């Protein structure tokens, strides 16, 4: 049973799960935001950014996902040159894009390409939270779409690792919202051809990304404690003016409510994906 408290304050500050998008890069040591242990950063990286004391899963960049999940040297990036502008002329957007590019080394919040996972040929995509919160604007929408279209043409399965913190990107207004329709349609056309799509929901997968392609996979996996939902917890809290129950919108909450198929620890993820690909005979089809 959920215990909720009637809050008297209008606004309540929610403690973020962590303050940075990953382990503190400039230090030898990183403090785990969950158990407060001081972790040797090199060890933490070796342990796939998972705390070896409490198994807290730190966020992971898109390229680290490629390195972790795909066979070495197998990944061929697609559409790297796809760069958008500032269609609405939203103030400060260009600087934000430039900063994100410098910080992440990515051209946009979504990295897509073709590669192999335990020998299985597939199309792989990952969203990077470090790039404007992993939000979806026109470029992310277009890249996701092209990835599914390429997979459809080549009759390949798709594995997506999502982490869209803010969902649809504000700075591109209605054009961002429309990417939800565009990507959902690309997923469905891929699905109608009998091809497999697995999505891994990582911290955080919210808003327009959750309410489109991330929710439409054949199998939906989630990393432990990942924040998953439509409305952000702060918006929910301000709307209902109640303190949120502990664990609200975490992966375990999503599993209990029937929104994901399984919660998989990061160190098991590659093995689980391999099993699922095996069950689907690779997830693609030789002929149509």
């Amino acid at each position, binding site marked *: 049973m959920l215990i*909720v408290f009637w809050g008297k304050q209008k606004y309540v500050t929610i403690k973020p799960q962590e303050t940075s998008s990953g382990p503190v890069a400039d230090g030898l040591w990183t403090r785990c935001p969950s158990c407060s242990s001081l972790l040797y950063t090199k060890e933490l990286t070796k342990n796939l950014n998972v705390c070896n004391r409490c198994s807290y899963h730190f966020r992971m960049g898109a390229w680290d996902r490629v390195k972790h999940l795909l066979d070495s040297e197998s990944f061929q990036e697609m559409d790297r040159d796809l760069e958008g502008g500032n269609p609405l002329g939203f103030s400060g957007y260009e600087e934000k894009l430039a900063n994100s590019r410098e910080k992440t080394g990515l051209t946009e919040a979504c990295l897509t390409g073709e590669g192999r996972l335990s020998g299985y040929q597939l199309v792989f995509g990952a969203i990077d939270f470090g790039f404007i919160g992993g939000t979806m604007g026109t470029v992310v929408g277009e890249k996701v779409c092209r990835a599914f279209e390429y997979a459809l043409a080549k009759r390949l399965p798709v594995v997506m690792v999502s982490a869209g913190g803010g969902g649809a990107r504000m700075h591109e207004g209605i054009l961002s919202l*429309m990417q939800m329709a565009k990507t959902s349609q690309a997923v469905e056309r891929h699905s109608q051809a009998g091809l497999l799509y697995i999505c891994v929901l990582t911290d955080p997968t919210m808003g327009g990304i959750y309410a489109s392609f991330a929710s439409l996979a054949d199998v939906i996996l989630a990393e432990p404690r990942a924040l998953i939902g439509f409305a952000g917890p702060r918006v929910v809290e301000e709307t209902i003016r109640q303190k949120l129950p502990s664990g609200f919108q975490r992966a375990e909450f999503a599993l209990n409510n029937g929104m994901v198929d399984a919660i998989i620890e990061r160190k098991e993820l590659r093995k689980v994906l391999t099993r699922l690909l095996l069950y689907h005979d690779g997830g693609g089809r030789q002929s149509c």
Partner: protein
Amino acid sequence: MLNGVFEWEKPLVELEKKIEELRRFTKEEGIDFSAEIATLESRAENLRHDIYSRLTPWQKVMIARHPRRPTCLDYIELIFDDFFELHGDRTIRDDPAMVGGIALLEGRPVTVIGPQKGKDTKDNIARNFGLPHPEGYRKALRLMRQAEKFHRPIISLIDVVGAYPGIEAEQRGQGVIIAENIRQMSFLKVPIICVITGEGGSGGALAIGVGDRILMLENAWYSVCSPEMCAQILWKDTKKAVEAAQSLCLTAQDLLAWKIIDEIIPEPPGGAHRDHEAMAMTLKEALLRHLQELEARPADELVAKRLDRYRQIGVVW
């Protein structure tokens, strides 16, 4: 806003009152004021044009939220000959924030769906301020699938600031049902006309907003989220909503330029709330015109064109 009159239209409303008084006086006392009335009428006309042709995005947002703006059920009553409301999502409950059913448009059966705002505080509480839960969207989807089965066109009247952000809504998969609606609407083999009648906010609007024709009322707004939420997320300050409304390019005129919508439906001067009947008749004419065009097309062609429309959005490479 006082008594439903916005600050910026006060001079006009006072002038209109004066004209009304003179008219009544003419009628009751038998004194001829027609010359005075004509002068004031022409002054009012100029003022009307002056005020309403220069509305800022934020003023439009205010008009779209006017408490007397026609709701979904108002349009249904004024536009259609008959309406039979259908309830429930067949899973949890009936969501009063979303209505839907079968209606007759000039004698032809159509399925109508739309979020329903309340008329007053009590009604608004019952309707959850027009913010649907997942079961509301599931009901809409059920009725749309039913429309496809019986080859009925779908008319979606959209006035929603967003899907309800609450604990139960999240438990029951608000995000999942929105994705599911978007996916299924995209492939339905019947004509779909969506009309943004007031507010079009976020996935809560898009979940009933994928179609062959997207129409929008002159003072409606449609965007990735409400100006308040945009200001909150980007600047942690809801007071910057006016600025956000400007930045988001959320007016019908902006959206027509982006080709997100197909047509702007003109509103009576000052907004739809000032003349429900006139507004409904203008909208009815547009619905009939678009429906006639769409019904002449084979279903497969409809779906192919619909997909192509969305595929092109945001392609500038």
